[in-house]
């Protein structure tokens, strides 16, 4: 509760929080079907209709309302981004901490496995998962999560190695704190800053990777919409119907602004050093 209040006290936290809340609201409305038009309804006489008072963001190749599709697209994209980043963060943090803390052989083993994963072409991975499980939302989530796990592992391991040797960890150790206490209490808290930034970066990446997967037919399946699919579908219509590219593009941009501002605020609020300096 205190954290939440602190975020609202933070200027970027207020703006970022408002943006994210707005998106969540739009996504919820989209999910509940409370959109200006039916996002799947094809108004075929009004194909590629420029934005006007009926269709606020125009219509697409099928005469579907872009504004409505944007709302359902946000809920789809957010689902994929949140879940994939959450999986990758948890897995990456666990692996990264384990590698840094246990060192030696564990470090080598974990990091080499991550090398294998990093070297593996994401497309091949997605093809494989699709072949086994069929295309769809969860396929995208799993594929993106596996792609980003090694990144989180490395991001956590680097600073963790550095922190491990810092005075306060040594101090804690001499006071007889247990390993698990030190890892969770000291290391993890000090990793919040790099992690939150990485999470906000990864959320942006996840939104865009989903676009790449959709582009190859491995992501969200039509006629459902995701911000990425809308963008990649718009590429050959860029000159004919620019609004098809502009609105999803801007939607992604603002959502990422929201994530970033909120992330910055979180970082400031959660960072123990910052807390000390504020106190």
């Amino acid at each position, binding site marked *: 509760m205190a954290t939440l209040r602190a975020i609202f006290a933070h200027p970027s936290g207020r703006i970022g929080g408002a943006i994210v809340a707005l998106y969540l609201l739009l996504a919820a409305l989209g999910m509940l079907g409370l959109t200006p038009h039916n996002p799947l309804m094809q108004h075929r006489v009004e194909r590629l209709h420029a934005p006007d008072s009926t269709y606020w963001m125009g219509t697409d190749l099928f005469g579907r309302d872009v504004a409505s599709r944007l709302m359902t697209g946000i809920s789809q994209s957010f689902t994929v981004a949140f879940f994939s980043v959450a999986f990758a963060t948890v897995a990456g943090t666990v692996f990264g901490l384990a590698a840094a803390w246990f060192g030696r052989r564990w470090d*080598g083993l974990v990091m080499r496995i991550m090398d294998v994963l990093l070297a593996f072409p994401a497309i091949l991975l997605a093809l494989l998962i699709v072949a086994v499980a069929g295309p769809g939302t969860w396929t995208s989530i799993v594929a993106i999560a596996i792609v980003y796990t090694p990144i989180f592992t490395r991001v956590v391991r680097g600073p963790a190695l550095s922190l491990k040797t810092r005075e306060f960890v040594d101090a804690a150790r001499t006071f007889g704190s247990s390993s698990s206490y030190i890892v969770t209490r000291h290391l993890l808290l000090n990793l919040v800053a790099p992690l939150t930034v990485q999470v906000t970066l990864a959320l942006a990446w996840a939104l865009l990777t989903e676009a790449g997967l959709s582009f190859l037919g491995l992501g969200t399946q039509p006629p459902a919409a995701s911000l990425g699919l809308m963008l990649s579908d718009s590429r050959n219509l860029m000159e004919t119907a620019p609004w098809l590219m502009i609105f999803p593009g801007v939607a992604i941009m603002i959502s990422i602004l929201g994530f970033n501002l909120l992330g910055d605020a979180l970082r400031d609020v959660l960072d123990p050093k910052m807390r000390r300096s504020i106190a």
Partner: protein
Amino acid sequence: MRRLATFPLVLLGVSIVVFLAIRMVPGDSITAMLGTEAGLLTPQQRDALAAYFGIDQPWFIQYWRWLLGLFQGNLGISSTYGRPVLGVILERFPLTLELALLSMIIALLVGMPAGIFAATHNEKLSDLGVRVVAMIGQSTPNFVLALLIIYTLSAGFGVLPAMGEFSPIWQDPLRNIGQLLLPAVTLGFAFAASVTRISRSAMLDVLSDDYVRTARSKGVSARGVIWRHALPNALIPVVTLSGIEFGYLLGGAVIVEQIYALPGLGRMVLDAILQRDYALVQGSVLFIAFNFMIVNLIVDLAYVALDPRIRLSEH
């Protein structure tokens, strides 16, 4: 360097995983070549083609054969190029390496100063400006950026870098840079945005650290604190990120290579996967994995250089 000794083991792991993965995906070299016409083949014809592509044996025998070849320095023959895999890869690699280096240079030259500037002007208007630009960079898919650049240049100015035939840097350096500049800017934009954010955050983090504050209270100038004390520490996350991004770029940038029609590794791997050129997929993934490990090794060495307190466990 005990680390180097683990390389073959990792590569072995990579090769088995890739070998199995590509064979588990439906479709094979025959359907890739003939498409739906493959249905016109008699079973005998199919067997003959399978023998031709070397996919007529159980997978472990195929793998064993491939592994034996590998020890003789032979990665196999690519079915699309009809040439040894290693030759094809090495032909594509200089472009990929050059593009990755160029993008990283652009990213670091733009991103680092921007990040440090934003950190030292925390929560001021100029900080906000830098952050907004970084945010745009981060959130623009590179295919959108590439298409916008190409459209603006060709429709607006009537110019475009020479597409199609790529000139290696040792043949025609001017043409080479002309061809790579826009793709590098396209890739570098997002990369720079990440560097900006990471370095800003790391810098803020370090600036609030005890020893920096101590140094400051001892009367070291703000500039001195930033350059001598804060920067080396703030560099660690930047190095991590750059290492990962650079490693990724060495694996090829598929979409950017597609749009700018550059014959790099990324397109080659994608085409090899789509055309089920098994030998080429295996060889190139192995090659990319090797590069990753080298880059990671360099990154780890950089940690040691930046923060002498870190001792790599292997040492």
